[in-house]
């Protein structure tokens, strides 16, 4: 792996990081995009359709992923971990490690012969563990790059993949490869994670098979999902009654997540509409405290869902248990009627909130904010000291923040902040270049 000298290092290849990289590269700047997973795309590539337009998510994201991979000014570095960052007089020095794929990326054609030959099946995080792939695999059908990666922790070293690979690409001799990047600016785009499904004991503590998280539901609704249709994971039944529990991981002091995660109301409304299309006979109920439709066209979207027959019930869900047939039973206080009732459903989705990407809560050594020396806000996302004057500037000159690395937001706002961070970085680089000329 060669050392690089670039104008901007973007950390994180979700929609925010990809957009920031493309904006800068289109202006002629040299960009390195470092992604820790084997493919770029982030959470957005796992979604089915997007609110408020209901466009196919893959149709929007895949061309962007491809544009990043083919841009002459972008060095795409997947399956890489940022180790440390040091300030130099002229910018930053980043130490990175390329993790071994055990596949020669230059030779691999993405044909998946190795994957079909491999005898070990493992849960696929792309499908939130409900789908499977093999110990060696191309991570998902639209992955960029379309290259296989071998997961040594789940490999029995049988050598079948190496034997089957027509390109001779499987390479057991690969080792972690450290390399360095000199850069003038950094854009942090490390994204978000969902609050854990097992966080609330009252909601089954993650043990109820038919109580799922909303990214699982996105996968059920996607044509490439684990079952190819909407089924409940407990026993493969097509659900006929489905409930959403809003604010199941946000606005909750007991979880330390006191803020509103902003997108949960909208994704629940979106999924309810998509389920109505996929399962026209299904009853869908959304239990909410208040519905927050903050964006352009979002209120109309909510009204459309109501008109389609989605039932919105104001109520606080106190507990969820399971009956003898794996059906989740919800105990809910109907706040407008002042009654507590129990209702049984086939499937329940907890509308979980957003927290910073793992490691970025300042508690671990792999924390991006810690490696970048960036302070966190009270919400544990990267702090923006002057949000009104400089909405993407971190506390350190030359380091900018975009997307859900700075707080919960939707795709529209992730893209807006990406272009804003790119524009701020571009001004900073030009200023720096001027100083260098006159120095």
């Amino acid at each position: 792996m060669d050392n690089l000298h670039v104008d901007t290092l973007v950390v994180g290849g979700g929609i925010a990081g990809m957009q920031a990289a493309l904006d800068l590269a289109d202006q002629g700047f040299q960009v390195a995009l470092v992604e820790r997973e084997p493919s770029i795309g982030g959470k957005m590539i796992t979604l089915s359709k997007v609110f408020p337009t209901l466009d196919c998510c893959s149709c929007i994201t895949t061309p962007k992923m491809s544009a990043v991979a083919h841009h002459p000014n972008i060095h795409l570095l997947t399956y890489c971990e940022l180790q440390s960052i040091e300030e130099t007089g002229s910018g930053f020095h980043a130490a990175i490690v390329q993790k071994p794929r055990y596949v020669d990326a230059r030779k691999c054609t993405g044909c998946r012969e190795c994957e079909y030959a491999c005898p070990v099946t493992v849960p696929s995080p792309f499908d939130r563990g409900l789908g499977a792939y093999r110990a060696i695999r191309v991570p998902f059908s639209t992955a960029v790059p379309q290259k296989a990666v071998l997961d040594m922790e789940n490999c029995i070293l049988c050598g079948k993949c190496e034997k089957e690979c027509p390109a001779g690409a499987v390479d057991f001799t690969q080792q972690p490869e450290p390399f360095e990047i000199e850069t003038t600016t950094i854009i942090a785009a490390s994204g978000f994670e969902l609050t854990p499904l097992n966080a609330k004991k009252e909601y089954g503590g993650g043990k109820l098979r038919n109580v799922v998280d909303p990214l699982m539901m996105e996968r059920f609704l996607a044509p490439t999902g684990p079952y190819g249709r909407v089924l409940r994971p407990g026993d493969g039944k097509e659900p006929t009654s489905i409930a959403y529990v809003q604010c199941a991981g946000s606005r909750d002091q007991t979880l330390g997540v006191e803020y509103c995660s902003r997108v949960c109301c909208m994704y629940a409304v979106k999924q309810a509409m998509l389920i109505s299309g996929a399962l026209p006979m299904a009853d869908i109920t959304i239990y909410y405290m208040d519905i927050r439709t903050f964006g352009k066209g979002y209120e109309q979207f909510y009204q459309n869902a109501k008109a389609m027959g989605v039932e919105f019930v104001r109520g606080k869900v106190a507990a969820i248990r399971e009956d003898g047939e794996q059906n989740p039973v919800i105990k809910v206080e109907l706040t407008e009627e002042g009654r507590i009732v129990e209702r049984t459903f086939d499937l329940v989705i907890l509308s979980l909130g957003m927290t910073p990407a793992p490691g970025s809560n300042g508690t671990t050594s792999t924390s991006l904010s810690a490696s970048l020396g960036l302070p966190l806000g009270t919400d544990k996302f990267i702090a923006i000291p002057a949000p009104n004057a400089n909405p993407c500037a971190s506390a350190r000159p030359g380091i900018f923040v975009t997307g859900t690395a700075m707080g919960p937001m939707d795709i529209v706002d992730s893209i807006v902040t990406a272009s804003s961070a790119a524009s701020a970085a571009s001004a900073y680089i030009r200023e720096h270049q001027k100083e260098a000329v006159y120095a």
Partner: protein
Amino acid sequence: MSDIKTEAPSRGEMLKRLRETHAVSVERTQVLFRAQKQMQQAICQFIRETPKTVPEIAAEIGKPSHEVLWFVASLKKYGIVVEAGMCGDYPLYQRAKEAQA
């Protein structure tokens, strides 16, 4: 600076090293792999002739239905099992070879 060049280890040596450094995970995965194979065979055997639902397969082979669904989904992904209609609210699954025959 020393002039001595260290030779890159051969493929055989690297594999030996990998077997040593990953002895624990290889052994754990071998146990898992054997269990997976048994489960896959049991499922495929039962749905060879007649398509079945996940709860029917689970009852026949004595495994939890969520586990059976996970295996059925993975067998379907790799073309070994196909969907073959519905029985009430449950999709039916059959071995691909027999379903296509």
